[in-house]
């Protein structure tokens, strides 16, 4: 096989993250030269850097900034100005520098998103007219980091997504909206959360509440702090549920119907599908005893097989078609990852999440290749493909 070796590859990401290393290894395994890495920190320090580094005709791979707090802090800096123009919690430039992070604290996701989006926009501006190809466009990444926008894009395209309640400012408004819509079970998610941060599966009935969450509330000097928790705390006390939802809503949330998920092997489950060059490739079944299935929160991983075996060929084909259409909708990226719920009768499916950086799936292969090797393998065919128009 000959992969186009004339197209230099540049990664925008964090050189210290294992994601970056995995992609480099995949390039090397194919006998390709390593990609150059621009860190988000470098980009923020020198907005013209892309113009200096990128050569015409090259390929740019946008990667996750990862979990390093230095990167998080940088995004907050980049988002400070935009955040100041909005309502809502934020840190001033001064406060950002003074801030000592506490482990797992849920910090200003909206400001982080605004900063991240600003850097993505800068990347796009700085490379305009240079005939570069993004493995996933900065626009598409920005849309995927806003659950409200992602939901709208999918819904408008007629793809199956849970119904949404629209924006709510707090618990009372949420309850009123649930009642109006006849929707007693909802997922409340941070609009700009990732890895299930700030997620609540809320059921209400007969004046009672049951909230499964990934959020721990901590009272600190009269101030309510939110922490990501792997324990998945549950709340039933109405006052506690109200406090939690009110606190999350200050950070901007996306609310959608809690569509029941299928059960397999005594567990509830959903499916992560990695779509490479438009085709479903790697798939991981995430099995759990709570409504929140993420693997780092205790979900067990499995192959898609137990789920697929319960579905009719037509239902499975429809699921795969949704994957293809979603990839096309986001400008035909080299990779994009979907989280999909199959209904308890195994007949239908819903897209729960679209992930720009959902390819860090270790220990699984498709056609004998890791997620990264498969992307490198698909690179040439992808570059020959017709680029689709990018979504708004």
């Amino acid at each position, binding site marked *: 096989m000959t992969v186009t070796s004339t197209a230099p590859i540049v990664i925008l990401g964090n050189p210290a993250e294992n994601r970056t290393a995995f992609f480099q290894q995949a390039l090397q395994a194919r006998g390709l030269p390593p990609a150059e890495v621009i860190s988000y920190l470098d980009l923020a320090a020198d907005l013209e850097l892309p113009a200096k580094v990128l050569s015409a005709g090259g390929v740019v791979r946008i990667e996750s900034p990862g979990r390093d707090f230095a990167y998080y802090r940088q995004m907050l800096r980049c988002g400070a100005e935009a955040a100041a123009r909005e309502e809502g919690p934020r840190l001033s430039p001064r406060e950002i520098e003074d801030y000592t992070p506490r482990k797992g604290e849920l910090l200003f996701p909206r400001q982080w998103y605004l900063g991240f989006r600003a850097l993505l926009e800068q990347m796009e501006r700085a490379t305009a007219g240079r005939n570069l190809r993004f493995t996933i466009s900065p626009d598409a990444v920005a849309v995927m980091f806003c659950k409200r926008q992602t939901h709208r894009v999918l819904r408008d395209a007629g793809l199956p997504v849970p119904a949404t309640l629209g924006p709510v400012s707090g618990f009372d408004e949420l*309850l009123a909206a649930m009642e109006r819509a006849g929707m007693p079970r909802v997922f409340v998610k941070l609009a700009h959360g990732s890895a299930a941060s700030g997620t609540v599966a809320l059921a209400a009935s007969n*004046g009672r509440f*049951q909230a499964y969450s990934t959020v721990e509330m901590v009272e600190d000097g009269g101030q309510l702090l939110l922490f990501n928790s792997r324990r998945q705390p549950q709340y039933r006390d109405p006052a506690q549920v109200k406090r939690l939802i009110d606190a999350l809503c200050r950070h901007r949330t996306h609310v959608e119907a809690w569509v029941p998920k299928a059960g397999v092997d005594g567990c509830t489950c959903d499916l992560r599908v990695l779509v490479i060059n438009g085709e479903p490739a790697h798939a991981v079944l995430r099995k759990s*005893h709570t409504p929140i299935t993420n693997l780092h929160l205790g979900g067990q991983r499995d192959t898609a097989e137990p789920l697929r075996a319960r579905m009719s060929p037509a239902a499975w084909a429809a699921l795969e078609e949704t994957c293809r259409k979603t990839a096309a909708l986001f400008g035909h990226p080299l990779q994009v990852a979907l989280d999909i719920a199959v209904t308890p009768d195994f007949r239908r499916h819903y897209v729960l999440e679209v992930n720009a950086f959902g390819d860090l799936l270790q220990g699984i292969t498709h056609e004998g290749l890791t997620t990264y090797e498969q992307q490198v393998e698909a690179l040439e065919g992808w570059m020959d493909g017709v680029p689709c128009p990018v979504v708004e």
Partner: protein
Amino acid sequence: MSIDENLSTFAGKPVRDYDPEQGIRDPTGTVYRLRIAYDDYDNYLNARKPAKRSAVSAGESTGFWGNVARLFGAKPPATANQQPAAAEPEEQAPDDEPFVELLAQFTADFAARDVPALVVGDWGQAGAMNDSCSAVRALVAHADRLPNLRALFLGDIMMEESEMSWITHGDLSPLYAAFPRLEHLQIRGAEKLSLGDLTLPGLKTLIIESGGLGSKVVQQVFEANLPNLEHLELWLGTDDYGGDTTVEDLEPLLDGVLFPKLSYLGLRDYESVDALAQAIGSAPILDRIKVLDLSLGNLSDEGGEALLASPKIRQLEKLDLHHHYLSDDMIAKFKALGIEVDLSERQEADEDGDEIYRYIAVSE
């Protein structure tokens, strides 16, 4: 523990969702589950807006919004305001719930007359106060087309569809005359459950799964006329979910005068299982049963000690204690009992300062 998967078998046979397009292909080898898919019920509600929508949650003053208003001083939502006195419009209206139509399709199939077992899954937003009453009415109305029905599961509903303790029923008594040949009756959920005068001469198995079983229902079970009952399972649960049944309430059963053919007694998922263990050790009922099932509860060494002190325990064929909080020492003693003891799924207590929490399995 939460119920995260639908039944795969029932009454000894594999369960499949009924698909009207396929019909009843295997009436005796397969058990069909009738369920209303989430989106189908949603479409039904949308088509009926707003009358049915408001009925879902604003039906009564003690309902969801009434309580919310009291808790938070919140203004009741507009739909509830506009129709304050539209009490239970679905009572008078023709019953057009999707489940009713699905059951009509099922029973219109000639093969339904051979069906020995049936599973009723989510009848449509079961997690949102939509009780099983219209499903029960429909079953009764179509009973003549299910003349061979011997096993019925009412409420094969998972956590993803509803909390177990929120699954709401009503009066089930019309079922008994409609299906006099029932041998197995299994119910999940106990909210507003009423068994009425339970008379089923052929019933061998009665199982009520719940997060909390009220003493009223337990009383109805004890007053039931079930001369052939062999297997009784009551998931007694916790007071948090309406499980107010005390050990004293269970005395008529422990005294051994009820259910002459009983061989399997399950008092499961019980918050007071330690106290029950004290009382059951000398109970006459132990002289007649083969299996005592105290599983899914919060049994600690205190209850374990009491059970071990009872000579009657050694006469059992099996003691099921799985999902417990017993120590290694205690487990070793049970293993040396000489009867089959299920000691799997040992739990670790949660400690919060001086407080120790031992949760039962369905504590949600």
